[in-house]
């Protein structure tokens, strides 16, 4: 039998681990400080915010949809927090509200995509601008930096003898939660089913609209959480917060092995891809490689990530041309005729 077991060996995850080790080894040659525990843990802070977005985006992409408005939702969250902080509202009250606002923004995307059946790319491109504008409208153009100390704790503090950032713990918890959601619960199974075949899933009694709206809301809520981390890390809130970070997020998801057309991939892959990107970025920072080059590397990795399935298919075709002949548009077309 050609395809006997579903996941024989987590090949892609393994590749990512090797790549991380390679990048780590390269980094350690650049700076003697690289391998210190402080440095390693500290460097993870760089990808916690995009990491939270990537976890949410992974769920959305597993459905075969996309959300590129997530970075703008962070900005909505940070400026809202600045208002709360200025009004003296304790974080215990404002944090859940901000997460809820994020979820609401996400759910609105989901409503447009799932209920009204608008193309997710165009819709979230629109809400990306709209939410960003909203953030500016709420927060005005001047940044707010006068945060109450309690607001900074989550994003800036370290625990365990000042080594492990609190935000890393938060990220780890969220990663485990999303992993569990996607790979162990009914909801996750339904997400992957919809991503593979929306119609068949609907025929099998899956509520597609509801599932999609929930995924968008979850991604929005994680963006809200990321906003709280942001305040701690940067201590400032402005309408342009996190602008442009969506490239990193999409790259992490794609490189993590989530099929951009939906239905396949693992959360562990996404987390590993985040580590890889973080390590590469950290290393490039140590090597004094500038931001622009980093952007080029990121862009190339993204393109490589999406070309990977196509390349694999091409390789398979080269090694075994006969078997794949029936596939392709012809195969799809032939069903449903007569």
């Amino acid at each position, binding site marked *: 039998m050609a395809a006997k077991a579903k996941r024989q060996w987590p090949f892609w995850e393994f590749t990512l681990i090797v790549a991380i080790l390679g990048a780590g080894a390269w980094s350690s040659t650049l700076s003697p400080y690289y391998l210190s525990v402080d440095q390693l843990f500290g460097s993870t802070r760089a990808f916690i915010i995009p990491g939270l977005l990537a976890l949410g985006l992974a769920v959305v992409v597993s459905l075969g949809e996309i959300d590129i408005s997530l970075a703008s939702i962070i900005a909505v969250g940070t400026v809202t927090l600045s208002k709360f902080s200025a009004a003296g509202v304790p974080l215990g009250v404002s944090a859940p509200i901000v997460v809820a606002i994020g979820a609401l923004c996400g759910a609105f995307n989901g409503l447009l995509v799932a209920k009204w059946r608008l193309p997710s790319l165009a819709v979230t491109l629109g809400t990306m*601008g709209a939410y960003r504008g909203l953030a500016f409208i709420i927060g005005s153009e001047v940044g707010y930096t006068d945060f109450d100390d309690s607001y900074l704790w989550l994003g800036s503090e370290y625990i365990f003898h000042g080594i492990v950032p609190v935000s890393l713990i938060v990220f780890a918890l969220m990663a485990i939660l999303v992993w569990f959601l996607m790979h162990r619960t009914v909801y996750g199974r339904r997400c992957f089913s919809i991503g593979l075949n929306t119609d068949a899933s609907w025929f099998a009694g899956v509520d597609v609209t509801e599932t999609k709206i929930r995924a968008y809301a979850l991604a929005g809520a994680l963006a809200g959480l990321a906003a709280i981390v942001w305040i701690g890390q940067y201590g400032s809130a402005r309408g342009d917060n996190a602008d442009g970070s969506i490239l990193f997020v999409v790259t992490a998801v794609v490189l993590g092995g989530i099929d951009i057309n939906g239905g396949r991939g693992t959360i562990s892959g996404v987390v590993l891809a985040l580590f890889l990107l973080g390590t590469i970025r950290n290393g490039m920072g140590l090597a004094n490689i500038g931001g622009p080059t980093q952007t080029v590397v990121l862009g190339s990795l993204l*393109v490589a990530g999406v070309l990977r399935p196509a390349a694999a298919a091409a390789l398979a075709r080269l090694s075994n041309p006969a078997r794949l002949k029936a596939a392709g548009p012809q195969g799809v077309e032939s069903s449903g005729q007569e």
Partner: protein
Amino acid sequence: MSDQPVPAEAAPSRNLVQFVLRLREAGVVVFLVLLGLTFGLLNDRFLSVQNLTIVASSAAILAIAACAQGVVLITRNLDVSVGSMMGLVAYLTADWTANHPGISPAEVVAIAVVLGIGLGAINGLLVAYGKVPALIGTLGTMSLYRGLTYIYAHGQEVSSSRLPHWMLESADIRIAGCPIYVIIAIIIVMAVAWFLYAYPLGRRIYAVGSNGVAAWFFGLRAERVVMFAYVLCGFLCGIAGLLYAARVGTVNVVLASGWEMSSLAAAVIGGVSVSGGSGTVIGAALGAVVLAAIDNGLVLLRVPEFWRMFIQGAAIVAAVAVDALIAEAIRRSTAGRRR
């Protein structure tokens, strides 16, 4: 049920579809007029000839970019590297011009165009032949092109003092009181519109976007058509980038960043469908004028700039929703028994 004459029943929705499809651009014009009147009522300077000229010239380059985006959208794809292509072309061309004093205008244009075509071809290869989803592929090249601009620039900008006079002065040329950029934009948009309207390849661009399955059944080679659309998009971005460089004089690395968004907004507002096959580049150019008018009006009314972002985003969502309604009406009125 079976004896009823069908046409009588289906007629209203059918006419509506036809009507909307035909008159999408007219709708944009009507909207533009209403917008102008509103701004004119709120601020008497808005409708002055001088101000309208400003609106037109600020819309000119965006109109070309929107036209580039429109061509790709019609094939049911998308190009978010428009701004980066413009930036890279502008920087490289300006740098080359600065380092080669005495270069002729024709050579400069040729460099910009060739660069644009090359960058567009890379996008086209990725999307049409690499089967990479358009958003992801061009998101990658967007950062790639922008990053290359940074790397090449090394933090330097090409200052206006190093550029030839004819280039810097070109932006101020007026023919019969009309800025030359506006004329160039009109000529280019009209030429592309004519090409799409009247040439077989142009019609195939529409055909591929209109119904991919039909194109396959018909035997059209969709890859070539999509590839061509991206090359044309790159070509237009090359021209737009050069014009932008000449207008601002000092070319820096962030030139035209964010234009992928503006060009898309302009095209979608101008009635180009994100689900392919419908809309015209003239509409896209009109969309650019709408955006420029909103910008200008908001400035005159002293509304903070960031409202523009919100309005632009909301406009995209609204335009997409209208689009989806039309697509739904088409689907319902067209053959096909399944859902």
